[in-house]
């Protein structure tokens, strides 16, 4: 028996370790902080379930633990003091009201934590039941592995170690489980020593398998990675009009824009640069009504000697300043393409490796793509400054190739888009002022920047039209795409550009020359903007997104006003890279969302339809767990109900009803009374089958009532209630 207890305890510990694997990714995948508290709570729940037998005791310990956690996390007042209770009550009423209003998004983190703790409580209960009572382990192991695989595939979480841990724990436990079952079968008395021998064997085998598995050579994946396919499809199927929830970051597929995304501040690359520059990756030229595509396939050419022959602007027409930037991509977040500032001239890798460029879209990739990029590269570039006068006086004689390519619009584009563009720019006569007018239009007309609750256009809805006239909230993709499309309706060649904003300056700066800083660029800095074509000058970047400022350096000629270097935008970016005329060099970049897997729970933070969906999922999960618990506990529940009912009836001296209900319960439990069977015989039979005597005792009292017309006295009633209770326990367990 002792061995059995030890084994059970080991099972429970293993169950906890596996469950811990479920909690570990929380901090990384969601915005949950202090997940150690949740782990602590789970430990308390597991231990209480195991060591405390009394149901009320269990409940009160877990409940107290929950209150303490919530108190520690959220409530300022002294525990159980008046204000404390008031605070608690306020939180509860407020959130419960929200639930009634179906307003899940507004829910406070107090309540979310409360719900989460309840889920943990229920889960720990369920697992305790699975492992120690019904000895079922396999299902949970499988679920854990699926969970980890999904997280590893679709989120930033790296589940390699988790997988190994899970493997070890689960195989040890499966072996132990087998031991328990063998013990049950053989009915042998197995002492502790026996158990340890068994354990030693299991651990040995598992350890060997683990080591062999980790260090053995492995084949490369035999199938193509299905994730991008799933992601691109998932974009379309989505979650209905609510739009999908995506993770911010750089992605290559922009054919379906829209939808909410969640913040992700994981590092993409570090850069040492002169001032805060925009990092370009690529441009796109074909607007489909839903998103962006390219008109041609990529056509790579080798970059020789690091000389990048790719101009977005004409160096002759524009003032430039030579700078150098060093980019170091984060190994955990490999970016498949090179990021570069405007005016790139020279690209030097720390490794001897070749780079290829596609001049149409400006995409630069290294020979071996992702892997070798990790070492970083140095870019020498000519940061441009544009003369506003030149731009204003720029002619409108675009080359045919440019016109053909960068004036493309879908046939289905609603006319009101063009009408609006014409209206905005009516008072301006030159291309530069028109572009500026469109750029300013959004911020001036109450368009709001928002990343959540953004719809994906469905059916015939046009992405730009929806943003301009219906939602008027959105993020960079909405603004930049809209600006490009509006300019194209005005016959101004424009294209859509992806990349990263300059990022934030690192807190700890290495010693660097003046005006140089170390910047950290994260997925949150993924961005998209606009380039407008000026025949003499080339491509000039514009920034229509509310809350962002144009990185391009514009200046007025001294002749004008003396305001020589006046920067039109509030932007303090003196590091304007200028786009030269480059019809093709584009890299795609932008906050193209990398699909976030739904498995990552706890992202209620981001609200919107996605948030509601997850909350519903959470609620559904709770309901499901409760359902399972109710199912597992159905006997106790029935028992409880039956006993309550008997007590009530007996209190009212309704002996007959109580007894008849007892007959009904027995009947349901598979002990039916046959017609013509006397109660006494039936009771005897039931007693034999259940190995008790209560039924006969109850029946003889009932006979007194039924066939003798004698009502029982008080002491007998008490005895009767006890008999019913005992019999109830026997029937239902």
């Amino acid at each position: 028996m002792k061995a059995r207890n030890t084994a059970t305890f080991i099972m429970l510990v293993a169950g906890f370790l596996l469950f811990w694997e479920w909690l570990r990714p929380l901090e990384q995948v969601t915005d949950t902080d202090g997940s150690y508290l949740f782990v602590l709570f789970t430990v308390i729940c597991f231990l209480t379930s195991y060591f405390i037998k009394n149901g009320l005791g269990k409940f009160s310990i877990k409940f107290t633990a929950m209150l303490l956690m919530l108190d520690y996390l959220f409530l300022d007042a002294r525990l159980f003091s008046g204000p404390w209770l008031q605070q608690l009550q306020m939180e509860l009423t407020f959130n419960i009201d929200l639930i009634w209003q179906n307003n899940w998004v507004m829910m406070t983190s107090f309540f979310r934590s409360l719900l989460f703790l309840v889920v943990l409580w229920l889960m720990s209960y369920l697992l305790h039941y699975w492992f120690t009572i019904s000895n079922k382990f396999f299902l949970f192991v499988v679920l854990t592995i699926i969970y980890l695989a999904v997280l590893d595939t679709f989120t930033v979480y790296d589940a390699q170690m988790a997988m190994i841990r899970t493997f070890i724990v689960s195989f040890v436990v499966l072996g132990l489980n087998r031991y328990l079952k063998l013990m049950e079968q053989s009915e042998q008395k197995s002492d502790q020593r026996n158990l340890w021998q068994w354990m030693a064997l299991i651990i040995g085998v598992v350890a060997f398998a683990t080591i062999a598995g980790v260090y053995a050579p492995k084949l490369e994946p035999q199938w193509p990675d299905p994730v991008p396919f799933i992601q691109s499809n998932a974009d379309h199927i989505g979650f209905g009009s609510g739009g999908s929830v995506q993770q911010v970051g750089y992605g290559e597929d922009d054919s379906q824009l829209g939808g909410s995304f969640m913040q992700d501040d994981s590092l993409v690359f570090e850069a040492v640069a002169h001032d805060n520059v925009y990092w370009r990756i690529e441009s796109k030229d074909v607007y489909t009504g839903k998103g962006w595509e390219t008109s041609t396939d990529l056509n790579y050419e080798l970059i020789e000697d690091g000389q990048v022959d790719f101009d977005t602007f004409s160096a002759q027409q524009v003032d430039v300043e030579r700078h150098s930037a060093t980019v170091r991509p984060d190994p955990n977040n490999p970016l498949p393409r090179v990021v570069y500032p405007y005016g790139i001239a020279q690209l030097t890798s720390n490794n001897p490796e070749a780079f290829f460029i596609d001049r149409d879209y400006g995409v630069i990739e290294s020979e071996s793509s992702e892997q070798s990029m990790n070492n970083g590269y140095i870019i020498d570039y000519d940061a441009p400054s544009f003369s506003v006068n030149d731009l204003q006086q720029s002619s409108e004689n675009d080359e045919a190739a440019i016109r053909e390519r960068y004036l493309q619009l879908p046939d289905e584009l609603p006319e009101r888009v063009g009408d609006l563009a014409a209206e905005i720019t009516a008072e301006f006569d030159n291309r530069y002022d028109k572009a500026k007018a469109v750029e300013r239009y959004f911020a001036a007309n109450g368009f709001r920047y928002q990343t959540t609750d953004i719809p994906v256009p469905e059916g015939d809805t046009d992405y730009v039209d929806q943003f301009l006239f219906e939602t008027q909230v959105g993020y960079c993709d909405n603004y930049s795409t809209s600006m490009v499309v509006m300019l194209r309706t005005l016959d101004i060649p424009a294209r859509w550009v992806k990349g990263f904003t300059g990022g934030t300056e690192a807190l700890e700066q290495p010693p660097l020359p003046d005006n140089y800083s170390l910047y950290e660029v994260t997925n949150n800095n993924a961005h998209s903007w606009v380039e407008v074509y000026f025949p003499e000058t080339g491509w000039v970047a514009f920034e229509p997104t509310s809350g962002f400022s144009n990185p391009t350096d514009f200046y007025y000629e001294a002749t004008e006003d003396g305001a020589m270097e006046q920067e039109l935008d509030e932007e303090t970016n003196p590091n304007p890279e200028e786009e030269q005329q480059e019809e093709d060099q584009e890299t795609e970049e932008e906050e193209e969302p990398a699909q976030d897997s739904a498995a990552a729970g706890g992202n209620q933070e981001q609200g919107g339809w996605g948030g509601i969906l997850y909350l519903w999922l959470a609620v559904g999960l709770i309901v499901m767990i409760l359902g399972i618990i109710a199912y597992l506990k159905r006997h106790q529940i029935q028992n409880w109900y039956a006993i309550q009912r008997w007590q009530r009836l007996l209190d009212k001296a309704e002996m007959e009803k109580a007894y008849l209900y007892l007959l009904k319960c027995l009947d349901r439990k598979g002990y039916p009374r046959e017609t013509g069977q006397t109660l006494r015989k039936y009771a005897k039979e039931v007693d034999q089958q259940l190995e008790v005597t209560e039924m006969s005792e109850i029946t003889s009292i009932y006979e007194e009532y039924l066939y003798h017309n004698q009502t029982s006295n008080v002491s007998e009633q008490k005895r009767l209630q006890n008999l019913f209770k005992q019999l109830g326990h026997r029937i239902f367990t």
Partner: protein
Amino acid sequence: MEYQKEVSQILQNIEKVMIGKQREVMLSLVALLADGHVLLEDVPGVGKTMMVRSLSKSLDCEFKRIQFTPDLLPSDVTGVSIYNPKDMAFEFRRGPIFGDIILADEINRTSPKTQSALLEAMEEMNVTIDGMTKSLKKPFFVMATQNPVDYEGTYPLPEAQLDRFLMKLRMGYPNEADEIEMLNRTDRTHPLDEIEPVIHREQLLDMQKQIEGLYVDETVKQYIVRLTAATRKSPYVQLGVSPRGSIALMKAAKAYAFVQNREFVIPDDVMYLAPYVLTHRIILRPEARYEGIIPSHLLKTILEEVDVPVRRELHG
């Protein structure tokens, strides 16, 4: 209960003599206590006489035996008036029927006339001789036997008259162990000689009185009536159990409950007694008999089909 000790002592007494026949012994006692009569149908030599004699000895009652023969006259049963020349008057000589416990052996061997003299006395509790009616005193318990083997020269009791008997029992042969035990006991002295009376006749009468007053709930009465009614409704039955049968069943059940030391009758009593009390009151249709149905089987089915009362609402 007052007489519990006596009852068990009587049963023990008889069981000393009647080995392995507890059930029949007990049923006989029940019939006696219920103020009814028993018809024992069995072959000779299985202990019918022994049982009656041991019963009467335990009770300190007067035991009489009538051996029925084809030439027996009613007056041989009831008694006869004889002229006494000394007194110059007729003097009544009481027949064996004036005993307390009477064994009417092989009742089917006598003529119907004599049979009916006995049956009338059983029913009416008095006999009429030469125009004078003489009451029989209680206790009055007749245990008649009939031999089912002999058909030649017998006069089977008319079926309609069988219900004068409260119960019809069969003894059956003892099993091997019981029979060996029987041999052992009769080796030296006959156990019958060792039986001492347990109760007086007054006590017996008192017990009978108590039994009459025993509580039978409406629910149980309803159950009895439903059972007997079911025998009448069965398609196999020509003549079902009469209301007299219902009364008999209730009386027997009361006595049985008394023997079981219970103050009230429960359906179990009724069910237990029904085969002994009701079977001989059912007359099947000839076609049912051809189909091989016998009353005891029919009764078994009825007992399975009629549900016992489990709730108070009588008409609910």
